């Protein structure tokens, strides 16, 4: 029984790797978008164009082009978020399947069986709780990211001095992933998978 759970944890690990890849991508996309937002103000003032302002139509053209790439990076952020959502959903599926393993079977284990540990092996309850915790972490982190990303377009309209600060603090939040506590994740995996090694 525990073996089956360990398999699930390994599957969960794969999903977490996918999450990490997407996280890297999301951050670079966010940086891209925020650096464009950061310089829009600069581009709105023809004074900043120096001699280049002598070129007919350059101010509008440059602004238009930047808006275009901003839109592009917004849509790529959206795509990455969708993929992150998929990862969270398949994590939750792994957890649901895990619950089915104990509850769906013909002989339902008693509470005592659930808590029973054999040697170094984790109890079934440990496994289930571990999966649930990991799922919750990623779900709430996903929700946080969702709200950070949706705040991005609003920053357009903010005053300049606030904007730069907000952009960088949001980015920090995105990088830190406060909902996914590294030590806890490691601890869970150690308790479940270590006895095998």
């Amino acid at each position, binding site marked *: 029984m525990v073996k089956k759970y360990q398999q699930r944890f390994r599957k969960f690990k794969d999903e977490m790797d996918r999450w990490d890849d997407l996280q890297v991508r999301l951050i670079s996309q966010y940086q891209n978008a925020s650096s464009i937002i950061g310089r829009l103000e*600069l*581009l709105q003032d023809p004074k900043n164009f*120096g*001699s280049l302002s*002598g070129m*007919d139509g*350059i101010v509008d053209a*440059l602004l238009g*082009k930047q808006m*275009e790439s901003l839109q592009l990076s917004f849509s790529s952020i959206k795509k990455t978020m969708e993929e992150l959502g998929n990862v969270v959903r398949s994590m939750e599926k792994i957890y649901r399947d895990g619950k089915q393993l104990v509850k769906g079977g013909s002989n339902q284990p008693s509470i005592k069986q659930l808590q029973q540990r054999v040697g170094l092996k984790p109890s079934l309850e440990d496994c289930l709780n571990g999966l649930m915790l990991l799922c919750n972490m990623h779900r709430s982190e996903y929700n946080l990211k969702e709200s950070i990303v949706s705040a991005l377009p609003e920053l357009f309209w903010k005053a300049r001095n606030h904007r730069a600060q907000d952009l960088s603090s949001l980015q920090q939040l995105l990088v830190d992933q406060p909902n996914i506590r590294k030590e806890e994740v490691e601890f869970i995996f150690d308790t479940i998978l270590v006895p095998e090694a």
Partner: protein
Amino acid sequence: MVLLGIVVPFVAPVVNPQDLPVHYSSFIAIVFGAVGTITTPGSSPLLPSITRLWRPSAQRNIRNQWSKLSLLKQQWASSSSSGRSHATSIVNAYLSEKYIPSMELGSLSDMIDIRNKVCLKLSKQQKLYRSKLLSSYKEMVDIVVQMVNASRLMKCYFKRSSSSTLVQFSNSSEDNNNDDVGDGGGISVFTLLTIPCFEKLAEELVHMFELELNLKRWLLMELFSLGSESSPKSLVWSEELYSGEFDNLCLCNLWSEETNELLHPSLKGHESNTPIVSSNQHPNAEVLQVYLVAWLAEVNIHTKRVDEIFELVSEEIHVGLS
């Protein structure tokens, strides 16, 4: 028409050739192999047999040229981006050099001549990156020249050679007789587009890169003149940045026949050819940032349209162009 058992003999009415529907004559031409005598309006002036041979070789040529264009587009992107990073390095070195005198050096200020040494180092760096930027620019010039060449080689001429009986085609018009304009008589090469269509698309595409090249040249000259306090030789628009540059820019349609000088940078739809007056002042940090954004943004290259063109062509020629 004449059924058995009908007694009255059928007399076919006399039909003048002019009264025939238009497609009849081409039908006749095919059936009877009538050579060169009957041409319906819009059909190929070449013999049908030659047209049949022309198509595959024209297709091969079109595929080649467009694959080249697609490859060149990628090369442009990489040269442009390395150019941008060199440009950024120039700007950074220049700005740090400017700030050195006012910089708080802390305990470092005890070192003799530290500021001068740092400045010297920074101006050396600028020089290094300037030469790197110039070589990126050179690459871009070469790329656009090749683009222009590819866009001009879309045609496929029937080559008449007396020595061999084989029908041959080439994409140069040198050894062909006058009645062949290389477009296969205006028929479509694959399913829809004719040679002039392909040429027009290529021309539109290449024109964007030509304009962008000129803007990049201007930006480069602005960046080069940053450090000109130490070297009094300032750059002039009408002087070559390297030998042979103007020959190449001429090929890129950036030479004005009227004024007999290099065109001034302009945007599409705003072609005015008035020089951009450079101010004598050195640009400040904000302006330099805008210059870098201008390099990065490639305002003349309308990404959506470029993708559209490549998509259209790629569908037509059944070759993936990314």
